[in-house]
């Protein structure tokens, strides 16, 4: 298995090189560059455009150079110095920007995934074992609504209700006064007060899908002969359901865990934008819109890298949880 992983990693390298080139070309595709977009924004807000500043920036970022030179600069920076380039908009190293937000992004994603699983799996299992019961119909209806409601819309509704009905401070993960504060107990409490909205919104959407998946998977497994075997052994129904069909039905979950890696960067972008969460999603969206070349490129590249790694992780995880795959060969 180790050899396999090494081999897969080896195969990833050419893939990633091609991906990095494509990322770079994609961000260069739209007309203009960061500076035209920047100037246009300025004009749109009625601000003066300082041509000297633009000229200096153009030179600063080598925007006049041919694309392959820019690409070479970028890539060699990444490979030789771990330098992902500078964000034109944020005037900061890309690496710093992404890392700054990574902790929050990962934290939020994990919490949401956990909450979603924590809810979805029991509900899905219940629905499956009580197929066509009233709670099953209820959960099904709920999960269809969940799957059908755009997350950003839900976010706005929840925010509005939280604000108008409960007078809560909404947006972001902290009250304004805590944003720049160092971590403290009060800050944690403050965060928990804010955290529930994004977690509920993000989890609601993915929970809906997860309930459907769990229910369908468990239903598939419930009628398998091995479940009957277990039943014939005299096991308690609840125990056997969790030990056998649910365990097998969880395999698809494990196999998608790897995919959530990419979601760490891009996940729930719209919701994060609506809720003004300082995660990577909104930053990526913003970078793409403002044509912040290196930042956008790095995001695209990272996304691809994480997708590729995620696939590997998924495969390994799946093999780990499923002896049928693990043992083969």
């Amino acid at each position, binding site marked *: *298995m180790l*050899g*396999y992983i090494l081999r897969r990693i080896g195969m990833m390298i050419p893939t990633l090189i091609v991906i990095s080139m494509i990322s770079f070309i994609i961000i260069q595709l739209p007309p203009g560059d960061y500076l035209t977009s920047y100037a246009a924004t300025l004009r749109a807000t009625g601000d003066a455009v300082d041509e000297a500043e633009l000229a200096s920036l153009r030179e600063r970022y080598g925007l006049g150079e041919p694309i392959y030179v820019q690409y070479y600069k970028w890539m060699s920076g990444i490979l030789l110095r771990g330098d992902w380039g500078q964000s034109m908009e944020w005037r900061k190293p890309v690496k710093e920007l992404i890392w700054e937000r990574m902790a929050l992004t990962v934290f939020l994603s994990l919490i949401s995934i956990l909450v979603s699983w924590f809810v979805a799996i029991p509900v899905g299992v219940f629905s499956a074992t009580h197929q066509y019961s009233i709670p099953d119909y209820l959960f099904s209806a709920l999960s269809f609504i969940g799957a059908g409601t755009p997350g950003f819309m839900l976010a706005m509704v929840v925010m509005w209700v939280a604000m108008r009905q409960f007078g809560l401070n909404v947006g972001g993960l902290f009250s304004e006064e805590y944003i720049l504060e160092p971590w403290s107990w009060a800050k944690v409490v403050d965060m928990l007060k804010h955290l529930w909205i994004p977690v509920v919104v993000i989890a609601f959407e993915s929970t809906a899908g997860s309930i459907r998946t769990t229910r369908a998977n468990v239903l598939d497994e419930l009628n398998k002969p091995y479940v009957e075997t277990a039943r014939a052994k005299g096991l308690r129904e609840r125990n056997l359901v969790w030990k056998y069909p649910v365990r097998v039905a969880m395999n698809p979950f494990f196999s998608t865990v790897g995919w959530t890696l990419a979601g760490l960067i891009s996940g729930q972008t719209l919701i994060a934008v609506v809720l003004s969460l300082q995660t990577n999603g909104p930053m990526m969206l913003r970078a793409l819109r403002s044509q912040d070349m290196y930042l956008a490129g790095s995001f695209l590249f990272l996304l691809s890298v994480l997708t590729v790694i995620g696939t590997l992780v998924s*495969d390994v995880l799946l*093999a780990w949880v499923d002896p049928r*795959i*693990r043992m*083969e*060969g």
Partner: protein
Amino acid sequence: MAENGAERPLLLEVKGLKKYFPIRKGFFSTRTVGYVKAVDGVSFFIREGETLGLVGESGCGKTTTGRLILRAYEPTGGEIWFNDRKMGRVNVTNLDRQQLKQLRQNMQMIFQDPYSSLNPRMTLLQIVGEPLLVNGVARGGDLQDRVAELLRVVGLRPEYMTRYPHAFSGGQRQRIGVARALALNPQLVVCDEPVSALDVSIQAQTLNLLQDLQAEFGLTYLFVSHDLSVVEHISDRVAVMYVGKLVESARTQQLFLKPLHPYTEALLSAVPKPDPRRRTEPIVLQGDVADPANPPSGCYFHPRCRYAIERCSQEEPQLRELGEEHFVSCHRADELSLQGVASAAMAV
């Protein structure tokens, strides 16, 4: 018919047929580490109008052999000579795409699973008529007439033509499969476990149907099955396969009454006889069927064979003819006296 069978011309002659499937070692690798020798140098022939039974346990290569003859798989080696009605005697393994299309009009297949081998979104007319349409044999009103005729032949009512497969029971579906196979009036029909999935009572109906059709249209069958009783019942001659190799072939009665290969003997002995008064202890073979990816040395059967001598583990036996049309690959075939099934009067 076995008696006068010898005068009939050969329809199919298979020589040294091989099919190796590469083994891509497991989930975590894509490199080929070996081959499953699913079919490994199989030779037999079928005369026109006769039924050759091909028996063996699962994984012995019998199904693969059936498919190789139709070139549903590309053979790894060997020759398949077929006496085509139009093209004459051709080597199936060398045919080009066009010729193959022609050939397939004369070679058809009936599958084991009557549920999955029929497209649920097609009506009977479409299913049975498809080969006619594709090969430009009939269309429009002609097509309907021909399909109606075929359905009648297999014992289904022509009015069913517009229905979908799900409206039929397992036995009826198998009849649909037979009708489709017969649509182009083939010379050879490869029957791949056609009755294994059917209930006892339906199995009998289907076997009778196949026999009736053979008599009516002069069909030739390659009858692939693991059920020795069924094979005995329907075949003129029988070939036994073990781990990709043909170990014995002979006229049916000869093979069942006087087998020459210890594996055949064990197989026959293992079949539970439907007669409580003849409770026999079967010859219980030790261990499992050999792994075709990693077969034993010498005779593949030797680790399980109770007659094995040292030579069996060293030297691979060749198929040889002992007695008229009785082929066997066993070093000790001439010295052993093996037990067949006793010919007893049927109870009731």
